[in-house]
């Protein structure tokens, strides 16, 4: 009976009716999974047609088909990234660094092309081998309902720093 109840509930769900709390739960879950390096579980938050994009610091509107960006992963590339990060020969992240993903000021911007658009400033800290690196900026998410589950269709990571320095790489998932 419990199961039937859930199914009815899922059918009624739509991205339009998502509350900020439901969206925040997803974003906080993502940050927590990343901080604990539960990368396989993290992948399940993304849709099969996902895009994970990080433009450069000097061209925050960078279009990956015309401009140089830092990262433009589809779902397959995200899977390859997880394979790499779990490999002890990924030297920059072996051993894994300690990270803290802070996500705040979550705002729902309405639905565009079937995706609920969300913005949230972020601050990600990375510590390893006496290094302290920070990544600061705004996330822009496109969220979609897949089988009643809210999932990430797109994540654009727009940084506010004018260069990556003092960081030497984006070796973690932001």
């Amino acid at each position, binding site marked *: 009976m419990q199961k039937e109840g859930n199914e009815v509930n899922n059918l009624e769900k739509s991205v339009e009716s998502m509350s900020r709390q439901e969206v925040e739960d997803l974003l906080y879950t993502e940050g927590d999974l990343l901080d604990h390096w539960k990368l396989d579980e993290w992948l399940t938050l993304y849709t099969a047609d996902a895009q994970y994009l990080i433009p450069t610091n000097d061209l925050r509107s960078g279009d990956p088909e015309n401009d140089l960006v*830092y990262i433009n992963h589809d779902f397959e590339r995200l899977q390859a990234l997880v394979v790499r990060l779990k490999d002890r020969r990924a*030297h920059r992240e072996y051993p894994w660094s300690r990270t803290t993903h802070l996500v705040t000021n979550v705002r729902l911007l309405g639905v565009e092309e079937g995706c609920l658009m969300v913005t949230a400033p972020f601050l990600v800290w990375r510590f390893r081998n006496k290094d302290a690196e920070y990544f600061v900026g705004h996330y822009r998410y496109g969220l979609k309902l897949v089988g009643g589950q809210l999932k990430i269709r797109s994540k654009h990571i727009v940084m506010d720093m004018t260069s990556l320095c003092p960081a*030497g*790489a984006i070796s973690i998932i932001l």
Partner: protein
Amino acid sequence: MEIIRGTHAYAVKANWKLLAENSIDGYHLGPTHETYITFLKNQGVSTTGGLSGGEGKDLGNGHGVLENVAPWGRPIAQWVPVFGEASKPDIERIHDYLLEKFGEERGRRMTELSRNLLVFPNLVMNDIMAITVRTFNPIAPDHMEVTQKELVPKGERPDLKALRLDSYLTFLGPGGFASPDDTEAMEACQQGFQAKEVEWTYMSRGFHHHPPGYTDEHHMRAFWRGWYRRMRAEE
């Protein structure tokens, strides 16, 4: 050719000369970038040959170049499965056109050989799975800042350009599947150099090879000799 918009700007906590070495050294690919080789394999690229058939050259005045056959795809014009079947006929056509236009020898160098070029002291142009243009400046003896761009053919067809840009990102830059491990290697070396009992960097690979192979350090010694000559001139 043109430089496109967007800049990779990052820092490495190591002496700037380590990036001059790293950018043109032909033997670190295996140990440093094993996860990238795994990535290529998982994409259906044959990596059994590894790097091969190349040569390191001293170009005089501290400049050096490494030229070799590499397993990755090249947007000009070496097709690999990851580029997708749809692009295969076009990339093969460009390959054949360049061989016809520039002749067998030069055409094959353009299309099939990868090239890591160091213009003394701190400009690198690597024509590998895409073309990167990199400069790096010391801000302290153990700290440098790197600025990196991408060079592309002007007016390239949009779908081929998109392939090229994607190919760049697989390996290159702070978010690639390879460059972060270069940063790690250079910083680890810099930490190792704190052991002051070791006074020298040893650079003798292929000292007596004629011509020098791609895993020899002939073209890297060219850089160090260029640097040493100028430093002595200052005294």
